[in-house]
């Protein structure tokens, strides 16, 4: 059977606060097949970023976070793994790109050194020179022509677009099977964003990397993803193939989102409620968007 690369079942998350537990995720079900580009779209606070952070194990040390649910990655239970097991996956099998590229690179080390460290996680014996060669090769792949200068610079000496391309190269250099991209273009200008996303799409197609693409920008999602999950307040409200979702949105929340996006063809902006009871309607699953083996 063609099992999915990543399968999340009934994921719940809550944070302990002084007022008691604050629920963030109410049972998410997400699956990603190998090489598939899947987008998770929602407003701020809908729980899209925390989902990626749970997959990466970033809340394991946080005592105020309670989560439950099964996370199956490559037939292994991520949620039952030890710290060391998870550590060995990160950077090799699963890697992540964050929103703000300049602050996700270490400002006290040159890019070359950081690249070397990334390569060492996959191959601890790699020599500096060999690492340098691979790094230059990958920087060329992300359309950085003066790779030598970039490797010799600090993150703050490079532009945002340049840093994001360095991040993409670092995230993909160890050929992970899953890439988590959390709003990778949001901090960039539109033209730079379009360039970086095109590059990213080409590379992940080439390397057959699956991507969980997290964004609030519907336009970007439409251009990048094969399949889309729309998330609202910790619940998936609609899922399906990208063109089904965009050409034929069914859930009231998705419809409101689509209507609210300003169009370059004009037509003004309609009056839309920013909250509504109907946004809590049950999930709508388009044909072809369901999990393999799920009852249709």
């Amino acid at each position, binding site marked *: 059977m063609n099992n999915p690369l990543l399968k999340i079942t009934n994921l719940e998350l809550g944070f302990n606060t002084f007022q008691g537990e604050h629920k963030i995720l109410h049972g998410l079900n997400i699956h990603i097949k190998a090489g598939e580009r899947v987008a998770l779209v929602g407003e701020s606070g809908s729980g899209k970023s925390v989902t990626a952070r749970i997959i990466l194990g970033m809340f394991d040390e946080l005592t105020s976070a309670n989560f439950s649910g099964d996370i199956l990655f490559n037939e292994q239970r991520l949620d039952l793994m030890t710290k060391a097991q998870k550590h060995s996956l990160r950077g090799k099998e699963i890697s992540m790109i964050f929103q703000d590229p300049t602050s996700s690179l270490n400002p006290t080390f040159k890019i070359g050194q950081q690249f070397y460290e990334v390569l060492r996680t996959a191959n601890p014996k790699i020599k500096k020179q060999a690492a340098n060669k691979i790094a230059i090769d990958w920087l060329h792949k992300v359309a950085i022509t003066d790779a030598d200068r970039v490797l010799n610079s600090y993150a703050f000496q490079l532009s945002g677009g340049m840093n994001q391309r360095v991040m993409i190269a670092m995230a993909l250099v160890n050929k992970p099977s899953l890439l988590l991209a959390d709003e990778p273009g949001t901090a960039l200008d539109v033209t730079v964003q379009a360039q970086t996303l095109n590059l990213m799409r080409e590379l992940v197609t080439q390397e057959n990397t699956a991507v969980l693409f997290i964004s609030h920008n519907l336009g970007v999602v439409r251009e990048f993803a094969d399949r889309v999950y729309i998330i609202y307040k910790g619940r998936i409200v609609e899922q399906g193939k990208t063109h089904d979702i965009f050409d034929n949105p069914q859930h009231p929340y998705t419809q409101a989102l689509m209507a609210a996006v300003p*169009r*370059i063809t004009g037509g003004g*902006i309609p009056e839309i409620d*920013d909250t509504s009871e109907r946004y809590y309607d049950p999930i709508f699953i388009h044909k072809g968007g369901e999990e393999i083996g799920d009852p249709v």
Partner: protein
Amino acid sequence: MNNTILFAKNINKVFGKGKDTVQALSDVTFGLQQGECLAIVGESGSGKSTIANVILGIFPPTSGEITFLNEKLLPERSLMLKKQIQFVQQNPLSALNPKKTIGASIKLALDVHNIGDKSDRGQIIDTLLLEVGLPIEFKHRLPAALSGGQRQRVSIARALACEPKIIVLDEPTSALDVLVQARILNLLNKLRKERGISYIFITHDLAVVRNIANNVCVFNQGKIVEYATTDVIFNNPKQQYTRQLISAIPVIDKSEQILRNKLSEAHNAQF
């Protein structure tokens, strides 16, 4: 034209001294009519915010002059001029005093500009809050107890409190979700029509511009590369750079894609 309320002529701004200088604005000229929404678009570093700061009088231009209601605007602004040109920022949380209630923040504007009788000011605050679509009880709340969209409404109410002629909006919806953005844009449109205020709307989001602005200035590296009505900019842009900007916008429906493809074909045809 006689209902031009603001005219910027040959504005230059150079930062730095000696060899290390940056020409942030070069030879920028535009006019703003009463009740108009003029959009200033460009990528980061194109000088959009610099022109806003020059108009607001935060720093003077290196050369060139701005006339407001047929009077030359000097770098030293009188209280009256400050009152008539107001500012709404991108991030409402950092624009509001976190220790002051919403009511107190708005009242400060009324006190500084001495608007209305002291005893009536409570009443004015209530009307302003209702006008921007917030419940009156909110005046007792702190900014931290409001959502992003609600905070932005407070910033707008505070700008309105001064009864300005012009509001400079610097990326007013960039920090907001699309549903909230739609509501804020509608509110801004409504206020402009009702009160006849002019907006200088600074943004990098061209899709927003398409739906709110009358005229558009496209900035690139401190220069205006194209200045035309919104219809012309989106249907028949003259400049290569404008086409390039529009063809980079991610779109969500088919008619938009057709328009965008048409523009990027024209863009490619030039090579």
